[in-house]
């Protein structure tokens, strides 16, 4: 089967999974969470509640509500986000690029640090370096996210400020005052990208500074996973016969490792990084809320605490869509990388 047919089949399955997700989301939000909660306060007259239900269409039988919900979903009329004070789709349009920017930044760090560490740890197997790297990577996946974020905030932002030393910003995406003086108009929503195009280096550098702490937090957690996979797959590949062929034919060690072995070892790493990136895209819930980074994650935390079910539903559908899409992309990339895969 050609790659094209394989993708079609996968996309069909994707739609089925997404439908399943919408059913689960609908059940959760309409039956379990009762969206009415977001529209009724302690001052609402009990008699007025039926009218609100009618206006929100909550009085119709469930399956009709679900069909209306699907129509709304497709027409991108995802309801009003009480938390963002704007239509949900607009809130997404506003905040998703911020999450993407953070995801890219931390992804770059993850790959640039994680992969080399994994390879070094494999090449120097069972040496002191290997042990150190393994402890570092295992610690990476044993630290609670918020604890790491707060410790970084405390050590790199709070303490230096107290001591009068230069400190990393730990709040928001760019300095509000600076943004007032040097506004950047939004093209893609990626702050650094937009400001660089418009030659506004002040904002670009400030946005970069604001990215450091959150990106470091997110990266530290995933570096562990990437390092371990890179190490085990590199060890696996180095034991393969075609490596001894390469050596037997006098190819330089550097080439044997970084060309012949690396490309094979990178296949499982790519799959993992794809999944990690998908995870990052779904919004780093805790990191964004600690660093007040205005992305999808922060909005979701606000939505959860104030039970704004339209925003939560939007986040769920978006996160599931990203997960499923990334899975498909990872499989396709996997096929490209490893010619042995046939469909």
């Amino acid at each position: 089967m050609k790659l094209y047919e394989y993708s079609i089949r996968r996309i069909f399955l994707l739609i089925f999974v997404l439908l399943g997700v919408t059913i689960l989301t609908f059940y959760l939000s309409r039956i379990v969470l009762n969206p009415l909660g977001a529209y009724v306060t302690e001052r609402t007259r009990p008699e007025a509640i039926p009218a609100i239900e009618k206006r929100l269409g909550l009085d119709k039988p469930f399956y009709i509500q679900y069909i209306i919900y699907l129509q709304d979903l497709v027409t991108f009329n995802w309801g009003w986000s009480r938390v963002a004070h704007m239509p949900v789709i607009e809130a997404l349009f506003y905040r998703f690029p911020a999450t993407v920017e953070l995801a890219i930044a931390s992804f770059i760090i993850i790959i640039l640090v994680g992969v080399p560490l994994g390879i070094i740890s494999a090449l120097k197997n069972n040496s002191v370096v290997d042990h150190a790297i393994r402890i570092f990577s295992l610690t990476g996946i044993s630290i609670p996210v918020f604890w790491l974020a707060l410790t970084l905030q405390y050590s790199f932002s709070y303490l230096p400020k107290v001591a009068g030393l230069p400190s990393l910003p730990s709040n928001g995406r760019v300095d509000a005052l600076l943004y007032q003086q040097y506004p950047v108009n939004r093209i893609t929503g990626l702050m650094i990208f937009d400001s660089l195009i418009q030659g506004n280096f002040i904002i670009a550098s400030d946005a970069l500074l604001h990215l450091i702490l959150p990106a470091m937090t997110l990266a530290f957690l995933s570096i562990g996973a990437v390092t371990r996979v890179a190490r085990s797959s590199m060890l696996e590949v180095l034991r393969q016969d075609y490596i001894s062929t390469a050596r037997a034919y006098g190819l330089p060690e550097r080439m044997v490792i970084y060309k012949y072995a690396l490309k094979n070892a990178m296949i499982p790493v790519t799959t993992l990084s794809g999944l990690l990136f998908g995870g990052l895209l779904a919004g780093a819930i805790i990191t964004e809320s600690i660093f007040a980074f205005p992305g999808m994650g922060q909005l979701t935390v606000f939505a959860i605490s104030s039970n704004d079910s339209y925003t939560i539903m939007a986040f769920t559908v978006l996160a599931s869509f990203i997960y499923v899409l990334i899975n498909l992309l990872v499989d396709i990339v996997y096929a490209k990388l490893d010619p042995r895969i046939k469909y």
Partner: protein
Amino acid sequence: MLLSVRDLIVEFYTYRGIVHALNGVSFDLDKGEVLGLAGETGSGKSVTAFSIQRLLPANAKIVSGKIVFDGVDLLELSEEKMREIRGQRIATIFQDPHTYLNPVFKIERQFLDVLKYNDPEIKALENKKEAERIAFEKAVEMLKKVKMPAPERVLKMYPHELSGGMKQRVLLAMAYSLTPDLIIADEATTALDVTIQAQVLEIMKELQKEKNLSVLLITHDLGVIAENCQKAAIMYAGRVVEIGDVKKVLISPKHPYTQGLLKALPRTDKEVELVGIPGTVPDLVNPPTGCAFNLRCPYAKEICRTKVPPYTLEEGSTVACYLYGGK
């Protein structure tokens, strides 16, 4: 003398203890000569091949012995010097073609890389493009030599798209393209079915004759040795027990183990009752004292159990057994 191996001892460090893979392997190989190295699995054939190329895995250690190749002891060489010898002077063809080609690169890439790094003529070329083109032509020419159909197309294909036989031919072509002095064929044809095996051996013989190469043919198939080699060496438990002219060794074997082997060989020319060798191959973690074969040898004497038998010359073959003198 192109290659002479003297008392090579190699040990492996595993969790179960130290495996004495080679216990003093010695043999010589002359220029243009084909030596067959035979023995059951676990007798140390492949370890010998890997030791010559110094490609032993990390937990192996060459305890002692000398491998003199063209007057130079390979064990003394630096890794850098050894790299120059591998490929250009000594080439190896491995057993299972399926796993010895890198799955994610096209044949062309792997073949051309080998040529670019080893072939003096191509190495000398500055212009990258030029080097690629010449390497490509050379590859095609070599593939034709090994009777590969449509070589240009094969070069563009991935290893998994070729059959076992074709892959072995690619490896052959790669090995011979560098005109090495010594080819080590480690069970090169065992994984192929008989018809393809014959073709590949035929090609090896032609190439060997044409370039007067010396070949170390490692196999457990005595038939293959009989047809292709001038000299034969029989290995058992990490030692060469008998070495000599192929006719003498196979027709009038001296060492009891060689005799046992031949008795276990089905013959087409006459009716013969097959007799296996009693007992099993010794455990190399704590090998038996004296001659390793003494537990299974019908003629074993007290001395066989205590002292390692020295090599003695017996009608043109060298044999390590107390049946033939030596106290």
